[in-house]
């Protein structure tokens, strides 16, 4: 294996409109700038080529709405990227046409992450999503028809007005389509956003309901045979011939503390103990890259101690044992014993590894806070 980061993220910030609850770096419209932005991305890639490995494992195009990007610009980008084993593109159902699906496939994309969020029209409206439930199904089949055999759904729960029966129905609808992978997030309404302002009381009610919603999600999906491999992520087990591991290899890289390079506005990279975030300002980003210089960045040096803590924090989100090794020095031994006693943590005989029990995973935040010294 050649040295360097083996995981590449590219941020495509453009959206048709901004959803009230979203806190990603997004830019509405600006069709005229899509092509120019893609050039900036490729310029940044050239500048950072040195930190990348010659062989990439994963590439991930996130947004924004990557599939809202002008098709020519998107195609140009995809055709210019280095090859990788897993190439994922995030897509909003309403943007997925037969042509787009074919183009993505032709450009080497082999995994699609579809922003479904919900199948209930009244909840989609609350989320400011323009999509209709049928649009999701159509997009899904366009992707299947184009040959995608690794499709992931994003679902959101805890939406204002959502009843437990709504969530149950969403899960059933998703399972009926049978994607290879599901990511289920609770709605995170940031204080001060117009969304929180509009739905304050209802969000509070949802916060209480969230406990049982999370349980419902895990119960339904594991009941349907999915593997709960990360706190919020589920995949089909790799028992179908030829498919192999259906976990998101790109996201696994984050959870395993691997180095990754992020390109684009607001994108974050972590390489060799340094983390940086690109400027979130589109104009400034494109301006500097046009001049051939790296964009303005916010740099966060990470000490060995912090890196170890992060690896514990992230590693305990997974269903596989966390191998401690040098991580043992940031783990409180007495806390391990106490949490074992409470049935929240399991460790092997020599305390070489740690795994959260099923209940421990529901309480993963607090348990991790307890475990760290």
């Amino acid at each position, binding site marked *: 294996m050649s040295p360097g980061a083996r995981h590449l993220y590219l941020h495509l910030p453009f959206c048709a409109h901004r959803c009230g609850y979203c806190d990603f770096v997004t830019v509405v419209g600006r069709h005229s700038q899509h092509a120019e932005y893609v050039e900036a991305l490729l310029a940044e890639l050239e500048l950072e080529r040195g930190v990348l490995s010659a062989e990439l494992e994963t590439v991930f195009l996130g947004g924004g709405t990557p599939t809202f990007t002008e098709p020519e610009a998107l195609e140009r980008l995809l055709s210019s990227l280095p090859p990788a084993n897993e190439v994922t593109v995030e897509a909003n159902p309403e943007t997925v046409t037969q042509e787009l699906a074919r183009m993505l496939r032709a450009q080497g994309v082999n995994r699609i992450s579809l922003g479904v969020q919900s199948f209930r029209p009244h909840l989609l409206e609350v989320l400011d999503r323009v999509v209709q439930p049928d649009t999701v199904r159509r997009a899904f089949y366009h992707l299947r028809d184009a040959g995608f055999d690794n499709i992931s759904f994003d679902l959101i729960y805890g939406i204002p007005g959502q009843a437990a029966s709504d969530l149950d129905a969403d899960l059933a609808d998703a399972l009926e389509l049978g994607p290879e992978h599901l990511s289920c997030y609770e709605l995170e309404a940031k204080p001060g956003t117009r969304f929180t302002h509009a739905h304050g009381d209802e969000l509070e009610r949802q916060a209480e309901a969230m406990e049982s919603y999370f349980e419902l999600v895990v119960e339904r999906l594991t009941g349907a045979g999915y593997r709960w491999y990360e*706190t919020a992520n589920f995949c089909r087990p790799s028992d179908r011939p030829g498919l192999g591991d259906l976990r998101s290899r790109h996201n696994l890289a984050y959870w395993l503390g691997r180095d990754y390079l*992020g390109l684009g506005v607001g994108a974050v990279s972590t390489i060799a103990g340094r983390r940086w975030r690109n400027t979130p300002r589109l104009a400034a980003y494109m301006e500097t890259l046009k001049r051939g210089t790296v964009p303005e960045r916010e740099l966060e040096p990470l000490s060995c101690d912090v890196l170890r803590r992060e690896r514990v*924090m992230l590693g305990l989100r997974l269903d596989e044992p966390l191998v401690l090794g040098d991580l043992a020095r940031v783990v409180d031994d007495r806390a391990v014993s106490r949490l074992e006693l409470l049935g929240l943590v399991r460790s092997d005989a020599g305390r070489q590894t740690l795994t959260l029990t099923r209940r421990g995973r*529901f*309480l*993963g935040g607090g348990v991790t*806070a307890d475990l760290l010294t």
Partner: protein
Amino acid sequence: MTQDRIRNFSIIAHIDHGKSTLADRILELTNAVSSRDMREQVLDSMDLERERGITIKAQAVRVEWKGHQLNLIDTPGHVDFTYEVSRSLQACEGALLVVDAAQGTQAQTLANAYLAIENNLDIVPVVNKIDLPSADPDAVAREIADLIGDDPEHVLRISAKTGQGVEDVLDAIVERVPPPSGDLDAPARALIFDSSYDQYRGVVAFVRVVDGRFSTREPLRAMALGTRFEAEELGFFSPTRSATGTLEAGEVGYVITGLKDVSRLRVGDTITSERRPAAEPLPGYKDVKPMVFSGLFPTDSDAYPELRDALERLKLNDAALFYEPETSQALGFGFRCGFLGLLHMEIVRERLEREFDLDLIVTAPNVAYRVKPPSGEWKEVHTPSDMPNEVEEVEEPYIKASIIVPKEYVGAIMELNNDRRGNFDHMEYLSEQRVHLTYELPLAEIVLDYYDQLKSRTRGYASFDYDVIDFRPGKLVRVDVLVGGEPVDALSLVIHRDSAYDRGRLLVERLREEIPRQHFDVAIQAAIGARVIARETVKARRKDVLAKCYGGDISRKRKLLEKQKAGKKRMKQVGMVEVPQEAFLAVLNLNDEKKS
């Protein structure tokens, strides 16, 4: 100066009735300081003293008026220091009783007036603030005259603010206050009525010489405690410090002792000369004992040495403060501190937090109990968790409470006192509008929130004073609190058996609100011995995890986790349960519900 030219007096007044304004006017009129320079001059001299590192506060000021030496003796201004007030009064032959012409007599005025009468002081009644539009000098004069058994015509009417009538006050002191009548040839005796600590000069005693004469460099002895020392310097304040070389019968002044420990020279003790000691000390010395106790623990257990140093330093100037190390399973290392009363406790706590910058957990206050275990000796218990399970007899301190209220609140006061196990003692009308009530109450019933209740039930009109009278048997039980099956010593309380069930239930309910949900169900129980009298459960959390975590979120999620971790660190670990510090104060707020 011969004794017949000396007058020693104090000013008795409720807070804000004009004591210090009157004192300032007296200093001005007697040319101790000129009115124009008064502030500057006094402050300048204090600055000068400060430069020399001396910070002795004048507790008595000597002035001259028409060929007489007047000594104005300051009295501590609050309820917990009744004994100190009584010693200051004992140093005088007379007192000015100052009452606000708009507000009339208050509980504190009464308490101190009675103390003055008990000490055989001649009282010069004064109605102050007659210039106020709302003043009713005649009505207030009648009230005072009734109180002290005098003629309303004898009551002086003044405005300390404008200076009106203040000369008459000085004349009245000369005319009505008798001169001291000590024996100049008898062995020397002086009463200590106050003391303070100066970091360079040691303990400074403020004294009233009763008999004989004291000189600089004379070897001296405090008779009750047996402390020996030398008079390094003798003198008086006028208002600047002035060393004199001698102090003799009838005079008031200070003695610099060089002693390094304020507790070795107690207020009320008698100083005599080692060369020719007096046979008998002056009467009335009491060893003042703390009655209210509370645990003080540093929020951050690393700050224990700082807390210990701070208490040591406070103790230098506060002989009444008591403390001993205490270890709590729940709160770690701290101190069990004893105070004269609630206000004293509040002052100490505030000084610790403000002057020494300490973050403290202060446990609910309790009183001193006298306990007799079966076939054992009587002993005093200062901490509820030290109360034995099996007791034959328990005694608790009782107070005499003196309350003055407008007559329409008498019912409210009676109801409150009945709730608090009070025994009605006496009621009288001070005027058509105002009533004076006295009750005997267990001290324990007032240490929590009695004063707040009193104020809220009388819209702030009640004034209140109390004095500890004796220990009396009580049907008291210890209620323990168990969190997750573990007893929490800092939450134990001793209460009357009849209210144990209600209090226990309220306490566990309050704790259920204060203790956050944990990874498991937490039982909160109140128990008397092995018998559980109340129980609540904090249900286990079912979810405590952040849903989303990808490349861009990692730093933010890590910071959230660190915050969560820091939050946990501020909690105290009781067995497996994390208990926030606020929970230990839950017992303080048990009566909140009754208020609303």
